[in-house]
């Protein structure tokens, strides 16, 4: 049988998957037709295709919870017990909000948010980096010194999305939900929002970061780190490969996630491979995904794409990353540590990642926080608007 795999490609993920699937094709006689597309296509077109009934059989997706009504339950076709052992932590992300025990997708890569630091800048400024366990305030202090010492325009940049913002907010004590219902604006949230707006006002965070984005649009801050505008970038594990390949004129490293009164918050995430109900080949699709999820395959994928694996067995046993540079492997371990810390100290991170309307919130928060930063709204109004907008967007 033939199945169509809509795969969004960031770096080389689909190439690796294709390589892997050829083994499966040879052994089963089935064919996988890869459509390697840009991220925009999966983000913007897939859901419409699903609705119109013209969707692919299998796809690599990031909006894990948002599409759960379309997923094919793999339970009948796979060894459910094995899946629970290996991927128990990420399976809920794909499930419908209440009482669902289905197996829907293979978490191909686990990502964790965390900061990158420009080591050369710290060196040049003669500032010692805060140690593991330092708080965001400690880092802010250190960055202020670096900024003034080197005459930088800013110290810290963060991608413009609530996904990045959530980690520090957890650290400041934001809970984000109560019994599965989003309660965004609480004291912790407010505290971090105030701090965050303050960082922009004082210039610790750059004008071309959040304030330069319009509406709910995502904005990557990596260019600011790459070009040396800032000394720290709050990003995530997915950026390792890019930074390793493209940064040649300064040293950088991944540092442990800073903490706060609420713990050491980082957001997990990542992309997964799912099959859709509409497929005509459920068994074949399921077997394909099952094949990919095997420890050996998952490890191969992780090491060849420089990612953290979601396979819990592999997390324990480790993966042979000997092909990647040391800095990447060091970074991977730091991120893995972050993920562990987050799981312990800020469980709301896992809830948020699994919440099926999280993508709406990702956009709403930056929209209003930006308005507070640029002074279009007072912070209080902005926070009230966040609550109101989220309530309206998740209402049915």
């Amino acid at each position, binding site marked *: 049988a033939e199945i169509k795999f809509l795969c969004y490609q960031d770096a080389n993920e689909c190439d690796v998957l294709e390589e892997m699937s050829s083994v499966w094709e040879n052994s089963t006689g089935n064919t996988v037709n890869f459509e390697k597309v840009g991220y925009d296509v999966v983000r913007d077109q897939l859901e419409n295709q699903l609705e*119109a*009934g013209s969707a692919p059989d299998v796809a690599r997706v990031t909006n894990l919870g948002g599409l759960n009504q379309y997923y094919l339950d793999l339970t009948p076709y796979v060894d459910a017990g094995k899946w629970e052992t290996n991927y128990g932590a990420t399976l809920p992300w794909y499930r419908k909000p209440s009482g669902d025990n289905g197996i829907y997708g293979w978490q191909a890569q686990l990502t964790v948010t965390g900061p990158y630091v420009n080591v050369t*800048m710290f060196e040049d400024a003669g500032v010692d980096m805060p140690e593991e366990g330092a708080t965001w305030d400690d880092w802010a202090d250190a960055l202020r010194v670096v900024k003034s010492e080197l*005459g930088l325009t800013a110290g810290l940049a963060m991608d413009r999305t609530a996904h990045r913002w959530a980690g520090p907010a957890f650290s400041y004590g934001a809970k984000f939900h109560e019994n599965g219902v989003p309660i965004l604006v609480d004291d912790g949230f407010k505290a971090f929002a105030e701090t965050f707006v303050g960082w922009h006002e004082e210039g610790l965070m750059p004008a071309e970061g959040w304030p330069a984005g319009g509406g709910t649009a995502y904005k990557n801050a990596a260019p600011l780190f790459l070009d040396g505008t800032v000394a720290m970038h709050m990003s995530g594990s997915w950026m390792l490969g890019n930074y390793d390949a493209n940064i040649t*004129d300064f040293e950088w490293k991944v540092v442990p996630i800073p903490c706060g009164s609420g713990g050491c918050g980082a957001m997990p995430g990542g992309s997964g491979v799912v099959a859709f109900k509409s497929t005509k080949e459920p068994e074949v699709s399921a077997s394909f995904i099952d094949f990919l999820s095997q420890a050996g395959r998952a490890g191969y994928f992780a090491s060849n794409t420089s990612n953290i694996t979601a396979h819990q067995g592999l*997390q*324990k*046993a480790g*993966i042979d990353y000997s092909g990647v540079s040391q800095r990447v492997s060091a970074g991977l371990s730091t991120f893995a540590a972050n993920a562990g810390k987050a799981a312990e100290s800020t469980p709301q991170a896992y809830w948020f990642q699994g919440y099926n309307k999280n993508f709406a919130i990702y956009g709403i928060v930056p929209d209003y926080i930006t308005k507070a930063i640029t002074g279009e709204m007072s912070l209080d109004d902005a926070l009230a608007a966040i609550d109101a907008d989220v309530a309206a967007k998740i209402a049915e």
Partner: protein
Amino acid sequence: MTDVIKFFTRRQGKKKASLTDWISYGFLFLGFLIIFLPVLWLVMNSVKSQFLLQKYDTNFLPMDYERIARATTYGPDGKDILIMKDLEPWVMFWKNLSDDERAEKDVVNYIKNFSGNEYYALRSHFGLVSVMAKDLILSQNLPDWLIKYPSMFPSAKKEYDPQAIVDSLVDEDARLLSEYLGLKPYKPNGFTAQILVSMMDPQTGELVEYSVSRINPTKDTVNARLVSNPKGGITKLPQNEIIINKNLKPSWINYTDPLTKKALKSFDAVRCLNNSVFVTIVATLITLLINSMAAFALSKYRFNGQVIFFVIILATLMVPASVLIVGIFKMVTMTGLSGSLWGVIIPGAATPTGVFMLRQYMLTIPDELLEAARMDAASEWTIYWRIIFPLALPAIAVLGILSIIWRWNDLILPMIAVSTTKAAYTIQLCLLDFNGEYLAREHYALAMTVVSLVPTTLVFVFLQKYITTGIASTGMK
């Protein structure tokens, strides 16, 4: 030349250039700059390396600074900063080499020329630590888990004690394994390419070399390290006194990589261009055919509902496709056109602008010609394609050119119709391939954008006379 001068100084019919002439030419020249500088800037940027683009390089030409290597090593003696002069360029830019180019170099032997911290720095730089460590583990029959240790989750790491194994090894091997495992006091060594600048020493009058990580043109000073004493901390040099050497370094790989599939395996420039050319040509032909048919009916016949049809067609001018995307998507899917280039071609083939323009033009074709043709026993279809179509050619050429522009630049319809069918990607969709979720390859995107401009620009250069005079002659009035 003298003709030109004469022209410039001539006033309509009279002899001397007047103020209005100077203003006119001034205005035109200013317009030229405002229009062409940005385009030129785009083209120049497209041959800048990814590195320069990341740095928001504002040089007009792709200039890079002269570089010098600076490394940081960590060890029992603490941190060391060292500067290595006169390294070969391929060493400095090892990260930028392709796999093939790397394979050509015998780095293992190369680093044997160095010793001490320089050796360690280069070893890390070339990524040899993990290779050599793995060899070490295998050759010394050390436990397997050592290889995977760095990637283990913290909870798992607790179960192993690598320090004990390191301690059992001799000096160099212990260092190697420690570096690999990331055990204290070892950290990954750093290696960076810094900018080499020099400045006259005010006392001695000699040129002194400095290494600089970043030059911010908006600041008065740069933070520099003495090449001769890198550990001595940084000095702030006045920016206007330092001497910077720059080299011209166009990055042709921006073009060659995507065109040879090296940039992205899934980016097939030839196929994208082919599809676009196909769509552009076929869609333009269909557009011309059916729009001129409709315009013919509307301009040369009297029939019931004529006005209604005309108003309907004009009304579509009011509705931007961008607000109808969802509906158009549904229709394309329902008609079975999605996933095929026909889904890009057909929905846009009927254009209100085209019908309107052609109709206005055809109104100026004398009815007598049609009557003559009818006397000549021509059928209405023959009249259409043998009389009206050729006679409306000036307007049809304009519509043709407009259609070429629209089709070539169209993003919405391809997005709707073929975004999940890679084989049917048009060039504009293909360009999106360079936008990852987290990663944008701006250098490739820029270069391919320039490539995507080539056909329209060629069309423009060769047909601009028809475009500009054509629009003038058609019934846009």
